[in-house]
């Protein structure tokens, strides 16, 4: 049942592509159902975990997902971030810029192939630019995030005050606050929550009480509340009725970091409450981060297949 030789009798068709992404060229593999299988209007983009990774992902998990999706009539596209695999350039670990451009290029390629709605699957670092790319468009029906680093070590020190204000007050946010009642309610509730947390921190410091630091990342300041990365984008996606499933393993450091960060935990609880089921939080036994267990890999494959099927045949 191998596939890429271009024989029509096979279960899927694989094709290499190079996509323009800013000044870089991003390598991608498009896997389409065989011509005999009716193709779904839903397509799946697979974003790997960044450094030291390539389009097939560990143990060929992305390849396996692509081929099994194709057997069910669902096309997919897996790609290498700039600076990884076959792509040009150097990898940039950021929440804006090149990695986001790479995901957008992959999404556009799948849309150009005829997909009307997209399911984005991002693994570890790959989840972050996937969130950013998805938040800026209206064709993403779902996101599955494998062990996303939603709390970054030293995040509180990354941006200047100006940059951090810019994260909150920007054109898309202001537009949504003005036009979308659900988002407006979430935005102001979040603002109140942040202020309450900050006041609480100040008070505890004044009273000489330490804050929970268990599981804090190396290099982080003890007692520093770091907050949830991509919080605004996640809120926007939920508001625009995009289903998001965050999947961690019990052994994941990224889960421990979220759990240890009071601000992030509170933000997630608020998002889940406001999202009314649109933000699912799944914890699997073992490591999801790095896909270091074959049994967990199979659970993740099944999860993607199930969600993609659900989008293909909405109930």
């Amino acid at each position: 049942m191998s596939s890429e030789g271009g024989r029509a009798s096979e279960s899927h068709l694989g094709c290499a592509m190079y996509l323009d992404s800013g000044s870089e060229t991003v390598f991608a593999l498009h896997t389409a159902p065989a011509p005999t299988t009716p193709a779904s209007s839903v397509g799946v983009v697979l974003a790997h975990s960044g450094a030291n990774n390539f389009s097939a992902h560990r143990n060929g998990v992305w390849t396996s997902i692509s081929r099994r999706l194709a057997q069910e009539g669902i096309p997919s596209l897996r790609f290498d971030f700039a600076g990884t695999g076959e792509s040009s350039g150097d990898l940039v670990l950021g929440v804006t810029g090149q990695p986001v451009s790479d995901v957008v290029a992959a999404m556009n390629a799948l849309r150009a192939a005829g997909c009307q709605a997209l399911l984005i699957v991002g693994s570890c670092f790959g989840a972050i630019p996937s969130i950013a790319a998805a938040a800026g468009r209206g064709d993403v029906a779902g996101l599955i995030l494998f062990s996303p680093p939603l709390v970054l070590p030293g995040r509180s020190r990354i941006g200047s005050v100006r940059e951090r204000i810019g994260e909150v007050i920007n054109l898309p946010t202001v537009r949504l606050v003005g036009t979308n009642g659900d988002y407006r309610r979430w935005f102001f509730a979040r603002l109140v929550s942040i202020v309450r947390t900050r006041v609480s921190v100040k008070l505890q410091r004044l009273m000489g009480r330490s804050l929970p630091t268990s599981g804090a990342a190396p290099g982080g300041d003890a007692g520093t509340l770091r907050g949830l990365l991509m919080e605004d984008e996640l809120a926007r996606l939920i508001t625009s009725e995009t289903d998001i499933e965050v999947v961690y393993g019990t052994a994941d450091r990224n889960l421990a970091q979220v759990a240890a960060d009071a601000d992030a935990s509170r933000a997630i609880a608020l998002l889940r409450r406001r999202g009314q089921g649109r933000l699912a939080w799944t914890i699997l036994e073992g490591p999801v981060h790095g896909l270091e267990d074959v049994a967990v890999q199979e659970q993740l494959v099944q999860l993607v297949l199930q969600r993609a099927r659900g989008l293909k045949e909405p109930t």
Partner: protein
Amino acid sequence: MRPGVHSQAGAALQPCAGPGQEAGGPGADQGTGLVNVARTVVGTVREDAGFLARPEGALFVVLHRPVDRAPSGLLTVCGSLFAEQHTDYRREVRLARVLASAGVAVARFHYRGVGNSGAGSTSLHAFSRDVLDVTRAVAHAGSLRRVAFLGVGMGSLIAAQALFDYPDAPLVLWKPVLDGTKFFKDFFRARLAAATRIGGSRPAPTEDLLATLAHEGQVDVMGFTVTASLYESVRGSHLAQTVPRQPRPILVQPFRGSRATGLEQLVADWKNGGSDVRLEPVKLAEDPWFIPDGAEIAASILATEEQLMSSVREWLVGAWRTDE
């Protein structure tokens, strides 16, 4: 052509089975021997990614060639396996670009049953057949007379088997695996370190793992599927016995670590057999069993890798110049 997508370029290429199109016919691209090809240019290097169609399953291949001249020869990269494949991947891409800029075509590929290639049986023999399939197809399509091989880690044993069909081919070895049994012994042992790192329970003893391998035909080793056919074919393989006796130019570049042990004797034996061997230790230390976390690579490591690649370029170009 859709904006932002360049799956194909150049009149010589067969239409690609890109999104929204039907698959191309069975005929391969004249210049590369590949089907469903995409082409790009990185600096002075033309890169074609596509599939080599074979009855047993398609092989994912990337061919790097100079844009401005006919290549002087072909280097086929026999990559490493498991976590090491991830660590080496970008290094091999960079080497391919360095060599192609210097006029050498480089073929890189995924073994059948690995990465983006089609499913297939996994064993040393099957992998070396993949090496030969790629080398023959690319050399034939590009009319390339000279062929060399690079073996990386476990790929050294695979490259060595391919040499039987290319008696004069120069051989480059990066951190070669000398003993297949020891390779798997160390790989299985690394499960302990992995379990400690993620706070998991102590993994099953190696004896139990081997019993499962024999019974079920495959086992999970830190998120990689190890098949019984691969294990059996690698166990008992020694580089000293696998490399054919014919004299040839050999460049050996061990990295720091346990694999460097025993190389001096092997190099001495090859020299006694008439081969022109250069042993060039590289100041790179890495744990082959784990994929490094994060993207930060120290400037010193990058500089060492640059040195590694320029050594290969000068050595290979020199070896072929001597051959003229």
